[in-house]
């Protein structure tokens, strides 16, 4: 992505501040160029004195809060002899995976030449693309989970399309490191909570430790927009004696908000409105809708609302009843981001079954296994395995490669980053997990995790694991966790 020497930032030695600053500026510029012109938006006719000054914030197209992430250095590496799941549904036995300069060079069989690569003997082990969690609140609801850290949902109004999840992300959340070390997570989407109908913008992160959220932002990833139907919004606002207090109230508030957004989008020079800019982005298809929704009948209504308004639902999240409408979801091209076995904790989760994913796969609909949990994000591979096995028991055979696809390429697709990551296709980011056994077994763990070709976790090297600021000097600092 950024054509700098891979280790430029680290060769400068101590105190070479000027060079470091230059590197950061250069990468910011490079990223800005992807989005828009990157020029400052201060008025050009301002020649110095205040009376002529015109003020203008950067526009949406100019990409405020740009990513400053750049890959860390890596060495050309060949993983040799592993069973490879490529994320796109395929399995290669005794495979070879080559990565260089942050990219996948090739994933193939043992015929691939490894000349010029540092070879890692991966025989008896498994390789997958980096695992992707489409539904996380890490950073926004970090640990320790104290009230002062509860930044995941600006639920003070039924719709808050104006908030951006990235402004709540605490990069020092220890949960990021556990997701990497125990779960092989290399990318994740941080969503606002679901107390309100429109929770705000999500942000997609590379799971790299950083001092700032900008240092984690996935370069070039589209934004998502969090919506929620069902019990949560009506309970929260109904409980405050205001609309919505019913499911029909949910829809009424949503539809009116969309009508207003359409009016805004049709205006030539509207007064800037943070929330409506996000809604306009959804109408334009630039921002992907991730809709928390449990019940089948409600999902069907939401899909019709989207048609009425003219936007697309990219994925229903939680979606415990998707299996009842696999046909409808297939026809509408909407993914279901689901758990393997959560059920019963609320009324709309009462009909959750472990066969949900398999029945959706059978119906030809898109399946993503998600976590919504700082715990389950550490074991998405096991959740995928559970869902696959439930299918097998009822006669729906799902290949291991497909089960891995549920937590890699399918997640990437629904997050709009599948041209960059999610599979081992040549040219994609070298986001890779080397597992010490079959990732669909309870007994396996990530042994090494690369992000953009940089080794960010190594179970065999105790110093090659991230320790957040919060953990320094605390009990268990640097422990295996």
């Amino acid at each position, binding site marked *: 992505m950024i054509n700098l020497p891979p280790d430029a930032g680290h060769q400068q030695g101590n105190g070479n501040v000027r060079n470091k600053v230059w590197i950061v500026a250069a990468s910011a510029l490079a990223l800005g160029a992807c989005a828009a012109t990157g020029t400052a938006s201060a008025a050009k006719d301002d020649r110095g004195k205040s009376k002529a000054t015109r003020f203008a914030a950067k526009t949406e197209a100019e990409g405020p809060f740009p990513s400053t992430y750049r890959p860390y250095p890596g060495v050309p590496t060949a993983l040799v002899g592993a069973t490879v799941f490529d994320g796109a549904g395929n399995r290669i036995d005794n495979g070879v995976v080559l990565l260089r300069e942050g990219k996948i060079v090739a994933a193939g069989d043992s015929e691939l030449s490894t000349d010029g690569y540092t070879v890692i003997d991966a025989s008896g082990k498994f390789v997958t693309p980096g695992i992707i969690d489409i539904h996380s609140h890490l950073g926004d609801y970090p*640990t*320790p*989970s*104290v009230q002062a850290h509860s930044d995941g949902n600006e639920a003070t109004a039924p719709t808050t399309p104006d908030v951006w999840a990235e402004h709540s992300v605490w990069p020092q959340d*220890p*949960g990021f490191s*556990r997701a990497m070390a*125990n779960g092989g997570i290399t990318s994740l989407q941080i969503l606002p909570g679901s107390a309100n109908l429109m929770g705000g913008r999500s942000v997609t992160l590379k799971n790299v430790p950083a001092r700032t959220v900008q240092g984690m932002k996935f370069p070039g990833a589209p934004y998502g927009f969090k919506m929620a139907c069902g*019990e949560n919004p009506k309970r929260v606002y109904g409980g405050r004696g205001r609309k919505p207090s019913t499911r029909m109230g949910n829809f009424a508030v949503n539809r009116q908000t969309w009508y207003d957004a359409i009016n805004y989008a049709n205006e030539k020079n509207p007064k800037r409105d943070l929330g409506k800019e996000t809604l306009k982005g959804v109408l334009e298809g630039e921002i992907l809708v991730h809709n928390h929704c449990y019940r089948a009948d409600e999902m069907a209504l939401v899909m019709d609302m989207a048609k009425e308004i003219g936007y697309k639902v990219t994925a229903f999240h939680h979606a415990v009843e998707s*299996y*009842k*409408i*696999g*046909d409808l979801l297939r026809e509408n091209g909407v993914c279901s981001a689901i758990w393997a*076995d*959560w*059920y*019963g*904790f*609320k*009324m709309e*989760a*009462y*009909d*959750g*079954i*472990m066969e949900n994913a398999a*029945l959706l796969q059978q119906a030809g609909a898109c399946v993503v296994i998600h976590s919504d*949990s*700082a*715990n*389950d994000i*550490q*074991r998405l591979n*096991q959740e995928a*395995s*559970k869902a*696959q*096995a439930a299918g*097998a*028991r009822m006669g729906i055979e799902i290949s291991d490669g497909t089960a891995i696809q549920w937590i890699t390429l399918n997640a990437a697709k629904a997050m709009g980053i599948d041209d960059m990551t999610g599979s081992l296709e040549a040219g994609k980011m070298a986001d890779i997990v080397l597992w*010490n*056994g079959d990732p*669909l*077994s*309870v*007994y*396996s*763990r990530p042994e090494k995790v690369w992000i953009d070709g940089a080794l960010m976790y190594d*179970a*065999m090297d*105790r110093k090659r694991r991230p320790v957040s600021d*919060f*953990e320094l000097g*605390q*009990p*268990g600092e640097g*422990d*295996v*966790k």
Partner: protein
Amino acid sequence: MKCLLTLAASALALSTTSAMAQDIVITNATVVTGDGSEPVKGGTIVVRSGQIVAAGADVTAPADIRTVDAGGAWVTPGIFASVTTLGIWDVGAVSESNDSRAGGSPFSAALDVELAVNPNNQHVMIHRAAGITRAATATMPSGSIFAGQGAIIDLDADGNPITKARAFQMVDLGQGGAARAGGSRASTYTLFRAALREAQALAGKTGTPQTTEITKDDEVMLSRFDAEALKPVVAGNQKLYVSVERAQDIRAAIALGKEFPKLDMVLVGASEGWMVASEIAAAGLPVLADPLDALPYGFDQLGSTQSNIGRMKAAGVQVGINAAGMENPRRLAQQAGNLVGLAKLPGATGLSWGEAFASISSIPAEIAGMGGKAGVLKSGAVGDVVIWDGDPLEVTSVPTKVYIGGVEQPLGNHQTRLRERYRDLDESTLPKAYDW
């Protein structure tokens, strides 16, 4: 009226179909004894009159009773889930269906879950189908540091779920307890001491207290009923499950145990137990711990690590897996399996396969006071036997047969019915509502 009659009839049907304990022999099994030993192939299990008679490789199958050929499958004791709320809620967020907390009750320690457990509850059926045959079920702390008296239940399909009522009292002496005690651990300990002293003062006064007997003098900190309920605790006749996470909270619990030396305490949670493992071992306290806690959820769990259980065990502590800390107790086997995988990582401490299975069978049973009676396939134990379709600790495996007290159990439930209805989406002749 017709509805009532139908309900009565089906209740009758349920009780008659499940009343008879069968004599049964299971051959050709990969036998997991549940006591920490490793699995043995080619084994046989004999169950008579609802009890295990023999299990292992050297057992000869009696010719006079029905034989089930396991075909090499894994056969284990039923999983023993501690601590749970199984049977006392239908939908977590539907408060009218949820008896797991009684924050509005005037009572705390006196709360008794015995009559609240509903054996027809879906979670009981779903967890039965997951191989859980017994559970320690209790109300959770809500209005007070004392949660009330839990029961050991079975998950069978008859109408009597109680194996042992008032098996344990539960108290929160950690962060949550401090909040309930008024905002400080300093208050927790004072409240705890005061409550136990009141219970001690009632020693010798027998019988159920009458409301007319309750005087203001009896109500320093507790109602007379709550103080009465703590009498067996302070006398060591009822176990006290103590919820704590922080290393220092564990030390405080140990110290309180010395002040009230008859207390029969069990630590629950104990995220930082590994930091004081030798002290726990020296105090002889068993632990029910959360195996996969790896995050500092609060300032009382800064040292959380998945190696907690393995390290405590290595220090000589008796440790079982706590079912309360996971999404639902049917994940017990998965969590135990993770501890086996953990053992491969440098710097981590996990469990062997046999130890891991014991941590969800014999150990929680022993901790619950049912040592040798549940969680093991040994002579004299209840006939809770599960046949699996694969390695029971793998996430891919489920039971194919579940026996509780020697009775083969139905494994269907709301979820299996939904699965069958939606096996296809064909409504060409009639709506799905007619597919049942």
